């Protein structure tokens, strides 16, 4: 990242052959610099880092993305195939992305917007209520309040739930211990794991929400 001390952690959206696709939002100076890169120019990356969702095609999986948490779900959802259900939520119509890419998977795709300007009016947790009973597993990425509510619903239905988390990050490899996420130990105590190396995907049951 020219002129910046820290790299930017960005999830892989899709993989095709020897190409990876990333989709990101301009949130600050760093992503603005990245967005201004010219086609054909070279950027320096360290990849791949961390874990991912463990996909089992024999299971009926619900993939839930919220906002800029939608892109990281594409490759996993496609790997899971037609049997899965995708629920993507956005702020409003202008924020809707990757609709066609998800529809190409051939699975059921549900889209919501917070203000009802596109798709279902409401949050991803609204349509989730209708499909959750049939699910074997939930995979989700998005804002923390959304993930917290999804984790709660999954727990109520005794469905395994995996969430991809974000945290302010420095080294990206597990050396600096910056990107901590609170984990509830079995004895009720708290300890920290790290998004870059232990995650970004965590079992929602162990996360200290």
């Amino acid at each position, binding site marked *: 990242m020219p002129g910046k001390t820290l790299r930017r952690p960005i999830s892989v959206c899709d993989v095709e052959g020897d190409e990876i696709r990333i989709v990101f939002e301009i949130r600050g100076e760093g992503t603005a610099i990245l967005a201004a890169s010219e086609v054909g120019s070279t950027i320096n990356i360290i990849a791949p880092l961390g874990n991912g969702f463990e996909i089992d095609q024999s299971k009926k999986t619900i993939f839930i993305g919220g906002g800029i948490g939608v892109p990281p779900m594409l490759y996993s959802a496609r790997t899971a195939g037609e049997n899965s259900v995708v629920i993507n939520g956005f702020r409003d119509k202008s924020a809707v992305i990757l609709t066609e890419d998800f529809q190409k998977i051939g699975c059921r795709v549900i889209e919501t917007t917070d203000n009802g300007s596109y798709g279902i009016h409401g949050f991803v947790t609204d349509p989730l209520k209708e499909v959750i009973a049939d699910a074997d597993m939930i995979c989700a990425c998005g804002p923390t309040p959304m993930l917290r509510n999804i984790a709660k619903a999954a727990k109520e239905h005794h469905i395994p739930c995996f969430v991809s988390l974000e945290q302010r990050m420095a080294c990206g490899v597990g*050396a*600096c*211990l910056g990107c901590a996420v609170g984990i509830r130990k079995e004895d009720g105590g708290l300890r920290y794991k790290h998004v870059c190396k232990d995650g970004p995907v965590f079992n929602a049951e162990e996360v200290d929400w």
Partner: protein
Amino acid sequence: MANLSVNIAGVQFDNPIIAASGTIGFGHEYGELYPLSVFGGISCKGTTLKERPGNPPPRIAETPMGMLNAVGLQNPGVEHFIHTELPWLKKQNTVVIANAAGSTEEDYCKIVEILSDTDVDMIELNISCPNVKEGGAQFGTSPESVAKITAAVRKYCTKPLIIKLSPNVADIAAVAKAAEFSGADAVSLINTLTGMRIDINTRRPIIKNITGGMSGPAVFPVAVRMVWQVKKAVKIPVIGLGGITTWQDAVEMIMAGADAIQIGTVLFTDPYAPIKIAEGLHGYLDSHEIDSVTQLTGTVEV
């Protein structure tokens, strides 16, 4: 090719580039990218007597040409370090420096006594962690307190002892002299400068701990100034750190008075920095027909 080896308090380093404590853990992660022998030495993650969970997140904030951190000495405890980390580290052909932290004088004496009975090559005393209420920073903020903790620990320390100095003081040279007088074999400086950032939308500090330690290129000129002041004040070796990013920075820090250097935050920007800095040092020394990096130390002309 010029000789990059240096001797710090009787310990031989193949090159003067040491990984700074807290930026490389216990070496495993960067050791997957290159042999850790690219570093002359590694200062391990700050270690306490008992395991510490560290601070709640967020622990990191970026700053103009730098960053803040408030990790809070998350570490698995000294026994884990000795039995799980140290045997592997000792096989990596690099000098292993244990970084010892604590809350009380007793803690420091105890951990240093324990570490003195191991294979670590040196002990760096962390009396300047700004991110833990009882993180030892209170020991590092005046010449009197530095003298007291250094003298106390010295009695239990049979390894070469480095005192890591805080820049959050009025007179860094006086603090360094106090460490030297009380038995330090070397000093390293600077630890991070205490800083703070606020999210203007939420009006809350970005870092959960409110304040954090500032590092990175932005602090480099402060570090150069302090190393220069300390080198004039003491006879023991001076390890210079704080924002070193390029080989040119390394040359500058050595000219200011550093006998060895530590690099930290730059590893996050470019994990391969130690290799590039070593190559650059070689090139600089060769092109200036200087045989040994030791001949460059303190050569600033004022």
